[in-house]
């Protein structure tokens, strides 16, 4: 296995890296990072070769990295290699300062949403053979960059917390009665997709409205609220309370149904549909809207 590596070259610095955590430059540059249909064939072609990745670098306190830049790495290809595998290899073999979040490697911890070839994707579930090279790997746009591929998630978490993201029971029996609340299979199915969210932040990063309105709840938080609002185990009153939170100025009515969130969601959650459904619910309840 070869370990050759081009010297990291500094290039393509974004235009306005002025502020403390430079915003990722990628947002405007949709590179149409083509998915190749016959990825098995592509993988076979790549056998024994290397893949070329260009990784965004930035560190506010290290000389030479304060100006954002891209480093090139050439990583030996192996069948099944994911984008996450490629940056892990680059870090472990070439540059131990290359920084990104990752943990489970199986699309459930939601740590490794990156902007890959112009689209928000989870590094661990994106096959590198599906992508055009060089594969451009950047932090999620519209979030402050902490370092390299790590963005500040605080705003995302704050929005999630805004929608009272916890089950609000009215009168569940004492637990030692060992009586569960009944729920129909249909109702469980209704909330199934919404309950899959792994808080990766891809949707929020893809959303133009969220980019322009910092107070917009965003698709993930609205989807979280959907999970509870549609759960029959919560009473009607609580549902109405939830809808009131959602129909506020920076809530569901902000969504312009561009479907970008739905397109990037790595768990295939129909986010836009959920937002639309909540709008209809709010209308049904005769709640005022903006």
């Amino acid at each position: 296995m070869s370990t050759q590596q081009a010297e990291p070259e500094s290039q393509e610095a974004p235009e306005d890296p002025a502020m403390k955590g430079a915003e990722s430059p990628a947002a405007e540059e949709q590179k149409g990072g083509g998915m190749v249909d016959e990825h098995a064939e592509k993988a076979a072609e790549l056998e024994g070769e290397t893949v070329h990745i260009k990784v965004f670098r930035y560190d506010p306190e290290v000389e030479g990295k304060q100006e954002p830049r891209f480093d090139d790495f050439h990583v030996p290809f192996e069948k099944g290699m994911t984008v996450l595998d490629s940056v892990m290899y680059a870090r472990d073999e070439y540059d131990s300062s290359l920084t990104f979040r990752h943990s489970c490697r199986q699309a459930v911890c939601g740590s490794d949403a990156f902007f890959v070839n112009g689209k928000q994707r989870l590094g661990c579930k994106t096959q590198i053979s599906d992508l055009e090279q060089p594969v451009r790997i950047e932090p999620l746009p519209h979030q402050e960059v902490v370092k390299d591929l790590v963005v500040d998630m605080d705003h995302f978490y704050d929005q999630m917390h805004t929608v009272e993201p916890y089950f609000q029971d009215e009168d569940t029996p004492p637990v030692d009665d060992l009586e569960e609340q009944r729920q129909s299979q249909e109702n469980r199915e209704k909330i199934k997709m919404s309950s899959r969210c792994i808080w990766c932040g891809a949707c929020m990063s893809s959303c133009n409205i969220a980019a322009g309105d910092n107070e917009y709840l965003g698709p993930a938080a609205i989807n979280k609220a959907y999970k509870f609002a549609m759960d029959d185990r919560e009473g009607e009153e609580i549902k109405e309370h939830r809808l009131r939170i959602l129909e506020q100025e920076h809530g569901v009515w902000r969504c312009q149904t561009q479907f970008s969130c739905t397109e990037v969601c790595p768990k295939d959650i129909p986010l836009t549909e959920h937002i639309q459904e909540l709008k209809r619910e709010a209308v049904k309840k005769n709640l005022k809207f903006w």
Partner: protein
Amino acid sequence: MYEHDVIVVGAGGAGLRAAIAAHEAGADVAMVTKLHPVRSHTGAAEGGINAALQEGDDWELHAYDTMKGSDYLGDAPAVETLAQNAPEETINLEHWGMPFSREDDGTVSQRPFGGLSYPRTTYAGAETGHHLLHTMYEQVVKRGIQVYDEWYVMDLATTDEDDPNDRECHGVVAYDVQSGNIEGFKANNGVVLATGGPGQAFDHTTNAVSCTGDGHAMAYRAGAPLEDMEFIQFHPTSLPSTGVLISEGVRGEGGILYNSEGERFMFEYGYANNSGELASRDVVARAELTEVGEGRGVDDEYVHLDMRHLGEERIMDRLENILHLAEDFEGVDGLVEPMPVKPGQHYAMGGIEVDENGQTCVDGLYAAGECACVSVHGGNRLGGNALPELIVFGKRAGQHAAGEDLGEPEIRTGYGDDVEDETDTELPVAPGKAGLETSGSVAADGGMATDAEGVLQRKVETAREHVDTLMDKDDGVQHAEIRAKLQQAMTDYVNVFRTEEGVKKALEIIRECREEYQDVYVDDPSRTFNTDLQQTIETRNLIDVAETIALGALVRDEFRGAHWRKEHQERKDEEWLKHTLISWDDGSPSIFYRPVILEGENKTYEPKERSY
């Protein structure tokens, strides 16, 4: 310095449950986690939660199955506490809104799992852990419990009396990953370690990159013994290329294992004539590797798990997540072809020695979840028994740390008059400390602080010096090299099949890793989000933990549960109905044993042959 009544380290299932319990008991509780809570590895658990909920089922049956599954190395008070409390704790999760799968009448669904005499595995699709994790985090948010996320706990602030039984834990030292600041967290009542498994000690594992045994290593160096570390579960169905887990739920729903000849080998070759694919995990893992060894493996590496006959509707309803995993991580469509699977490191039955209340022998130091060993799982954990352990013992640890009276524990901890000393094993190398210690040792300046703040302050200073040393060094060895060598040695020599020669070889390599670690350095000069530094510290933890796994595997010269020894093909009840305990002893580890407790509330569990 931060100060709280109870500090919970780690925010997966056990940590969240402990924090909620401590909060409900009136304590000011804070969670300190190197991730964000929803990133914790509990989220990857797929199968379910064993709980005797239905009529016809009974906690005593659950306890019996667990004890049999443990190969009679579980302690009855722990096993029975689990079985008695699992139903209530499971219903509690439902009351918190957890989206369990449902039956026609709206009750929660339960399915059969390996080693269970009744279908009592309560599940939420094949994503039970994800829902459990998020449901409990929601409750933490609801209660406004303070979470310090992306703070990496480096050390415990424990006093250093000679006898660990006399020591007290007053808090933790952690650094803020985002800024690099190192701070002390004072715990007025107690510290609960809920740091998960040590799976990263192995090369092929279902565990997350973050499962580095941090809690194990910190407690060990603080004087709490590690118990039964040789018992590592290898899950029979992990995907060959990544180690991603394919839930036992597939076999629970009727999935079948085939070798390269298309034979249903679990029956054809008599590995488990009654239970077949649903035999205990250790039995199935050995069967698979035996098939591969006999030349009946596919590509000489794995076997096939086939679920096509279950039909698309049933698969979509109960196992949809498995289709995504097989497609995304192995490129296989489970609806049209069988899935390749092989054993992968999955779970550590052993861990930090605690009693039923989660307490270690060090006063104020608790552990719960995979990092702890109560011991519920003994020599082998049954599928579906990890999640109830998190909620049952997480809760108890949180309550006890907050000062609630849970009664006198029956399980004893630490070195005492009921233990037997190890006498006769020849070790190929000296285990433990190599060269200079930069943290965890008795203060060099001679001053032995005993007050909480003094202890904490001294530990903070030691940690700062330690980090400076690692950062200031300009060359040497990098952690990734040492970690890869360690993982390879463990997967080569301390895997499903173990030989005396192999385990000794592993101990030698671990010693080499320890010596190389003396020359480790951190290349990334930044204090901002320095994962190079964090992984360097984690690697030290992995070395300490891996060594206890190999030491346990060497001294236990019998075949019990998941621990298979080539030279010792039988379970030796006369000699080995006892737990292996390894104590750090300030750098010269010692081994001792404590008898297993088989006397339960209403009966004594008589060891029987474990056949499925």
